């Protein structure tokens, strides 16, 4: 191998390398392009194009994976933004619902200008399809007291406040067996007492008892409060007669009433804190 380094071939090779390094570099520095450089570039240009496209493809795959972290962060940011927008939308939905709620009670107020109404949210209810006991989010501090009537958005009687604490209250619905409301048939003025019934409770219905044997009532008649007992104002819609039955024990007929108020899933109710009792 020593002979190789002393050989003509090696000396020529080193000379060429020196020429290439200094002469070509000098030409390049002064802005001139040598003939050999032009030939080399002309020759390898097509191959460089091909290799360049491979490089681009590799770069594409690489940036696909390197962009994952950026995309993850962007995804997290967008998720957070979406949650914020969602909460705004939910808030807007709640406002719309509240607006509808107050609109409906405006009707009640217009029909009964003497009513003083207080809204309360239902925060708990007894498990079951037709709720008989509601827990409300306001109490005596909010102006709610025992025996105040509660009404639904559609104006139908829902029940009354059975118990009230400082910041809570419990209301029984009209289908609760402990409830009793003085009512009369709007068409025929036949009076009776609306009571809850254990058997009818599951169907969301109640009954009117103490009807006269010859009472003029029929299915479809509208039942309203009579105002007797001073808990409920008079003339408040309660429900419609579903059917008329005969009780063998009491030897009297009774009517099954479907309440107007929606007792399935009330969200907000109105408490009538004050009203002018009807003297009639």
């Amino acid at each position, binding site marked *: *191998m*020593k*002979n*190789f*380094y002393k050989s003509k*071939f*090696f000396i020529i*090779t*080193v000379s*060429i*390398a*020196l020429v*290439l*390094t200094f002469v*070509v*570099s000098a030409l*390049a*520095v002064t*802005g001139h392009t040598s003939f*050999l*450089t032009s030939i*080399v*570039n002309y020759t*390898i240009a097509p*191959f*460089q194009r091909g*290799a*360049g496209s*491979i*490089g*681009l493809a*590799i*770069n594409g795959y*690489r940036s696909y994976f390197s962009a994952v972290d950026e995309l993850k962060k962007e995804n997290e940011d967008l998720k957070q933004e979406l949650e914020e927008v969602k909460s705004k939308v939910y808030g807007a939905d709640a406002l719309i619902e509240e607006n509808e709620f107050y609109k409906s009670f405006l009707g009640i107020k217009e029909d009964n200008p003497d009513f003083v109404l207080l809204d309360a949210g239902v925060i708990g209810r007894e498990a079951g399809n037709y709720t008989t006991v509601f827990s409300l989010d306001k109490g005596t501090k909010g102006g709610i007291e025992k025996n105040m009537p509660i009404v639904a958005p559609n104006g139908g009687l829902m029940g009354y406040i059975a118990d009230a604490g400082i910041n809570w209250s419990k209301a029984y619905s009209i289908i609760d067996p402990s409830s009793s409301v003085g009512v009369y048939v709007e068409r025929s003025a036949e009076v009776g007492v609306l009571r809850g019934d254990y058997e009818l409770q599951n169907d969301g219905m109640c009954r009117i008892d103490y009807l006269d044997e010859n009472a003029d009532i029929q299915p479809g008649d509208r039942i309203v409060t009579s105002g007797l007992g001073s808990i409920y104002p008079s003339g408040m819609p309660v429900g419609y007669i579903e059917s008329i039955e005969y009780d063998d024990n009491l030897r009297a007929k009774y009517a099954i009433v479907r309440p107007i108020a929606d007792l399935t899933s009330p969200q907000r109710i109105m408490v009538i804190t004050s009203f002018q009792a009807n003297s009639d």
Partner: protein
Amino acid sequence: MTQERSNGMTQKNRIRAVLGICVISAVAFITALSQLSVFPYLKISGCIPDVLCAFLICSSVMYEGKVSCILALVGGFILQASGCGGVSYYPLLYLAAVCFVPMLYRRIFKNGFVAVGVGGLCIFTVEALIITVAQSLNGARLGYSLTHTFIPFVLYSMVCLVLSYLYCRLHRLIFGARRIADIED
């Protein structure tokens, strides 16, 4: 008969050797193109490794002096010609590399892998120093160049050196290139 068989086998080996040289030249050309067009997309810390130098170092241990020198000269010139102007050291550097590493193998280490590793490290260190000095002369802070150019360049090039060595071993298995130990001094 024996002579004829001997001549046939010699001719077969000769064809195989020529084919091997053609293949190694083609691979060297592809490596040079890769360094120019593919590796710019595979920069690490802004560095492009000297893939061609790594390949030439590995192939110099396999092939006799002439083949290595020609490959070094042509490869170095391609890189110089394709550069953006300015002083280029590639032909001289590559020529020095293909002479230095076989010398390490013959005189000191007697082991191809170790000779390639140590020789490659020395060559890449010198090249990285040249780049670092050039950057510093152009205004870059020396500390920054050392951490962002010198070390990444040497490490990246050493990785390419290992891959090139693996290829060259495979090439030798297929084409049966002559080792330097077979060349008489």
